[in-house]
């Protein structure tokens, strides 16, 4: 164990029996359980924690909580590397490996610190002004260099091996923040029986109470409140959990970090969990954040918020300074100073106020503080650590030096109004506390404690209890009586005067935003250049845009702007706070929706068979489908042609289970079909199926498919795979809104039935071999015939129809029997040489036959565009009919369906190729494009379907298919889209 030079021998909330070893850039260090990385580094006397964003100035810790702007580290290694982690909220764990950021070659010796010398050039808007020329697009050239020179930690491309989760939670009351107000609120709400979720970002409950000495009354109060909550069964306490954002309907997003710093994903431990919490009421007890003061070189390591120094001393037993100056404009810092003095330091309080309360004088005397009132710090001295300060009377120019090794500052306290503002409630300024408090809240939202400007402990606890009761009552729980707080509570007053602005004309920089390296001079320059609105100023200077979201800088910046523009603070306005309150990893937001689980994957009932029998699968929308089979070839290019040949010459079997299937039943089923299809369905006889096309309201084609009539009031509709959900919604919508009088039910049965297509000249013989009890003759089951039967006790639906242009049947059985029927067909027809064929061949066979499919049915084409205009009935009404005749849809020059045949042996056509007339320049969008392409076993050539301006009026014309991505221009001829058996003789055998 390394010696920890700044650690006190007793006190604090650390576990001295739990030593932890960690490393900083490989250097072995030690701390204790209960430490944060920041407290452990400070205990080891490491003050230089990083280099600043732009100027590469040495920086130290400013804070002890989520507001920390400087102490950002890269943690972990390999895929677990995480940049920009605030050390002040990183719990120390055994083996933690930390690296400081933004130093080259190192933070201790940083060559980029040269930026400090050219600082006058790097002011507000420097990048915008400098890197916009000389040419348009120059920024693209400069950007990588700028990004390398500036910035924080680096993201990496390696896969993160850790596990992240997301979940939902519900509650009657959510209490955000477990400081005294939140603890009281949760207790009051929990006592009513309401389901309460208490959210605390820290590992311990207590909030500000945790920064008090462990032997004080505050600690016994904290413990008593914690115990009371743990005894309330309806209260759930979420430690290490940050409320990231507030959304409509009182919905909250939370992130919970793992208890263990090194969770094991193989055992299901998550690094972070994002929770969507839906409470009926919310109590915001989010506390307050101390503000820095503005003076020259206020960013030197060793310049720190007074509350942070107190927290390091009392909570972590780390004494950072021996000679301390505490500069302030308010009462609270005096109590921090007193604690620091009790820790053994020599402390000087420098208060800008001319007069302070007698109680403060008394405290100073008791605690042996040296007091300088009416005095301000004008400059911090030292470079890598502070060695002194310059002081001046508020109304005098003369400065004098005081030596110190720690400079604490307190510019007053700002309520953490971020969450309450996420929903659009603008914070409002209260001059009595020189701070913003939440604006008007939505119904069911309540406030408690410092966030609303209530700084006295007794008020905070009483107000918390009241807010908790109100929230429970809002959620519908009876509150017997307003809770009383019995314990005597030590109160300290809080009085504040607006902080003085930094003196101008002095050397050094007064930083407003430490993380984004924005100085008071940048703010005044931006205001002078016209960026007067705080929102514009923020974007121009990047103030408040770092990972700390300007938690320490916002109010100071608004104060400066108000001063420069001669406005009151509320008139100067505030910036908009947005989620997340503190940084959250992308992994946590994604949870387990990664890899195969990024989006749903649907599997066919035949999936397991395909996998076991050499199918290569392909994603088709949400489906995983058999693309091609190994029997036909090792690559798709060789296999699909072989599979096509199989179907054209013998018989093949293909999985069509993904087709949409809809059960349509009821006395008005025929009427419904007749209204949604463009062609007639009223007279379809039982035992027959019909191809139909549906239009959208605007007369573009919605979908096509086949519907079979199995009984007078019972139909079986099939849709394309891609549009199945769309068609189902379309029918439901019409039945529930337009045609409520129709007695008809539609039920999606896509998942109910396994479907397979048996196709090829030997298809009938194959079925006769496999299903010997049934008559498959042309007379018994003609083209477009259908019937229901029973095979071995299993219902079987057979439809004689063809997608490929060959004699073909579709067979449907309940999904669990899909594999059984499939195997029966393959086994029974083995003497005929039957083979399975995949999606690629299925799609190619239909191109040869000229059937349109998903690629052509893209909701932009009309019936006539697709050559289907003659199907539309002139006798009846149907959805889309009225809008078919719009001039734009009847223009003969519309892009419409053509067939294409390649004219260049050795070249190929490609899907998406742009079509041009022969001889015209190959620029722009051309006259159309190729939708579907295949090698044709019939034509021994590449053929395609496409859309071309004027369509088949150009029959026989030679055109050019341009594919700029590959630099290909291939000649092709416009032909009929039906490449095979135009009279349909093969279907009627």
């Amino acid at each position, binding site marked *: 164990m390394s010696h920890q030079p700044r650690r006190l021998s007793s006190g604090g909330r650390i576990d001295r029996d739990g030593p932890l070893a960690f490393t900083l850039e490989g250097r072995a260090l030690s701390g204790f359980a209960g430490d944060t990385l920041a407290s452990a580094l400070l205990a080891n006397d490491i003050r230089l924690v990083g280099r600043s964003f732009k100027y590469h100035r040495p920086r130290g810790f400013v804070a002890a909580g989520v507001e920390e702007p400087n102490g950002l580290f890269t943690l972990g290694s390999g895929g677990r590397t995480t940049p920009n982690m605030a050390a002040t909220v990183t719990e120390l764990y055994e083996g933690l490996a930390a690296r400081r950021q933004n130093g080259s070659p190192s933070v201790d010796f940083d060559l980029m610190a040269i930026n400090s010398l050219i600082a006058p050039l790097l002011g507000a808007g420097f990048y915008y002004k400098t890197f916009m020329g000389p040419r348009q697009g120059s920024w693209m050239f400069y950007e990588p260099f700028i990004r390398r020179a500036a910035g924080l930690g680096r993201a990496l491309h390696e896969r993160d091996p850790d596990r992240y*989760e997301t979940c939902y939670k519900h509650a009657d009351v959510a209490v955000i923040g477990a400081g005294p107000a939140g603890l009281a609120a949760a207790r009051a709400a929990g006592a009513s029986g309401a389901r309460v979720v208490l959210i605390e970002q820290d590992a311990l409950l207590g909030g500000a109470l945790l920064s008090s000495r462990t032997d004080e009354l505050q600690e016994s109060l904290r413990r008593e409140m914690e115990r009371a909550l743990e005894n309330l069964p309806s209260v759930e306490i979420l430690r290490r959990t940050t409320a990231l954002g507030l959304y409509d309907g009182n919905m909250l997003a939370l992130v919970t970090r793992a208890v263990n710093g090194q969770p094991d994903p193989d055992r299901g431990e998550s690094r972070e969990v994002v929770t969507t919490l839906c409470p009926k009421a919310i109590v915001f007890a989010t506390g307050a954040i101390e503000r820095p003061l503005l003076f020259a070189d206020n960013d030197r390591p060793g310049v720190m918020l007074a509350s942070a120094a107190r927290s390091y001393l009392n909570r972590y037993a780390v004494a950072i300074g021996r000679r301390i100056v505490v500069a302030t404009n308010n009462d609270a810092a005096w109590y921090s100073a007193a604690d620091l003095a009790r820790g053994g330091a020599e402390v000087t309080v420098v208060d800008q106020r001319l007069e302070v309360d007698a109680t403060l004088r008394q405290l100073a005397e008791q605690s042996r503080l040296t007091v300088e009132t009416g005095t301000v710090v004008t400059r911090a001295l030292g470079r890598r650590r502070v060695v002194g300060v310059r002081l001046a009377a508020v109304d005098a120019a003369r400065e004098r030096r005081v030596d110190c090794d720690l400079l604490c500052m307190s510019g007053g306290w700002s309520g953490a109004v971020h969450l309450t503002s996420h929903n659009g409630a603008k914070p409002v300024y209260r001059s009595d506390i020189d701070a913003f408090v939440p604006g008007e809240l939505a119904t069911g939202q309540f406030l408690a404690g410092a966030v609303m400007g209530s700084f006295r402990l007794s008020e905070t606890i009483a107000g918390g209890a009241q807010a908790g009761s109100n929230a429970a009552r809002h959620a519908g729980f009876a509150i017997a009586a307003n809770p009383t707080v019995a314990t005597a509570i030590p109160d300290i007053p809080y009085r504040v005067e607006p902080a003085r602005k930094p003196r101008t004309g002095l050397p050094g920089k007064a930083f407003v935003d430490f993380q984004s390296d924005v100085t008071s001079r940048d703010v005044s320059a931006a205001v002078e250049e016209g960026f007067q609105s705080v929102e514009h100023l923020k974007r121009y200077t990047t103030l408040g845009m770092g990972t700390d979201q300007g938690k320490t800088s916002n109010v100071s910046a608004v104060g400066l702007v108000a001063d420069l523009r001669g406005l009151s603070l509320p008139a100067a306005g505030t910036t908009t706070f947005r989620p997340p309150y503190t940084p959250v990893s992308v992994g946590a937001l994604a949870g*387990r929706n990664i890899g195969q689980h990024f989006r749903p994957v649907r599997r066919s009932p035949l999936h*397991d068979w395909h*996998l076991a029998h050499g199918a290569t699968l392909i994603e088709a929308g949400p489906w995983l489908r058999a693309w091609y089979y190994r029997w036909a070839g090792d690559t798709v290019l060789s296999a699909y042609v072989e599979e096509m040949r199989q179907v054209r010459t013998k018989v093949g079997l293909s999985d069509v289970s993904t087709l949409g299937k809809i059960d349509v039943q009821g006395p008005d089923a025929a009427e419904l079909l007749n209204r949604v299809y463009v062609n007639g369905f009223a007279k379809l006889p039982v035992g027959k199926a019909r191809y139909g096309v549906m239009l959208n309201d605007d007369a573009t084609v919605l979908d096509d498919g086949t519907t079979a009539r199995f009984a007078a009031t019972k139909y079986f509709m099939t849709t394309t795979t891609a549009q199945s959900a769309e068609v189902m919604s379309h029918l439901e919508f019409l039945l529930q809104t337009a045609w409520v009088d129709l007695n008809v*039910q539609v039920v999606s049965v896509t998942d109910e039935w396994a479907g397979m297509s048996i196709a090829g000249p030997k298809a009938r013989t194959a079925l006769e071999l496999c299903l010997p009890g049934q008559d498959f003759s042309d007379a018994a089951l003609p083209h477009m015939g259908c019937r229901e039967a029973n095979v071995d006790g299993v219902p079987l639906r057979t439809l004689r129809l063809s997608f490929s242009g060959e004699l073909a049947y579709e067979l449907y059985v309940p999904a669990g029997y899909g594999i059984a029927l499939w195997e029966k067909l393959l086994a029974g027809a083995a003497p005929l040489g039957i083979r399975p064929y995949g999606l690629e061949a299925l799609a190619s066979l239909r191109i040869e036959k000229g059937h349109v499919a998903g690629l052509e049915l893209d909701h932009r084409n009309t019936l006539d565009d697709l050559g289907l205009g003659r199907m539309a009935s002139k006798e009846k009404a149907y959805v889309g009919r009225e809008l078919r005749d719009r001039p734009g849809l009847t223009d003969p020059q519309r892009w419409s369906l053509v067939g294409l045949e390649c004219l260049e042996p050795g070249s190929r056509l490609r899907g998406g190729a742009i079509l041009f007339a022969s001889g015209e320049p190959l620029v722009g969008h051309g006259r159309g494009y190729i939708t579907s392409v295949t090698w044709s076993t019939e034509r021994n050539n590449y053929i395609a379907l496409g859309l071309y301006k004027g369509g088949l009026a150009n029959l026989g014309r030679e055109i050019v298919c341009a594919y700029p991505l590959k630099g290909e221009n291939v000649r092709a001829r416009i032909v009929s889209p039906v490449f095979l058996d135009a009279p349909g003789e093969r279907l009627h055998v």
Partner: protein
Amino acid sequence: MFEWHSALAGGVSAGGRDGVRGGRQLRLTEVRGWHLAQLAVFAQQQSEFQERLRALSGAQLPEELYRGVTHNDSRLVRITPQQYWWFAASNASMVRLARELPPSAGTVTLLSAGRVRVRIAGPNARDVLAKGIPLDLHTKAFQVGQSAQTGLHHTGVFLERVADDGYEIYVPRSYAAWLWEWLIDAALPFGYDIMVEAPAPTSNNSESHQP
């Protein structure tokens, strides 16, 4: 004899994993051997429909939505004002109702082959479901016997609370294997046993097409 093939055949096998604290808090079971039909009642024909149903199964159409009623081995859940789901161990009565019901009274659609039924039971069952289901499943909000149509990991499912610490989900078959992978991974921190529950084999029933 056709052999029935489970959608989870590739993923469900006896076994399980221990959780973070050792031990197995959950039982994940694929329940086989049940039947489901969707019944639709045309508005003016409710009494006719009710009579036929009672004659065949003794079951009543429930009034309240998503709170099932059980009669013998039949369970009925009203899923919309006019639609009901009828669960039973055999589909014989469903097939008969479909055959005998006058078309003007309503419709019967068999859905058992298109759904996979998974039971998740154990003290952390609710915690696992909360990773994907946005509904409040606390006893105060979702009691035993209550059901819901909801989303679980991008998939529409029917959910029913079957015990204090037991829930069943009915997931469309094509999504089932994918959702099962997600479910067992979600259950990993708590540890789980995987089981299959199937009825004892019976003589071949020509109307029952799922074992």
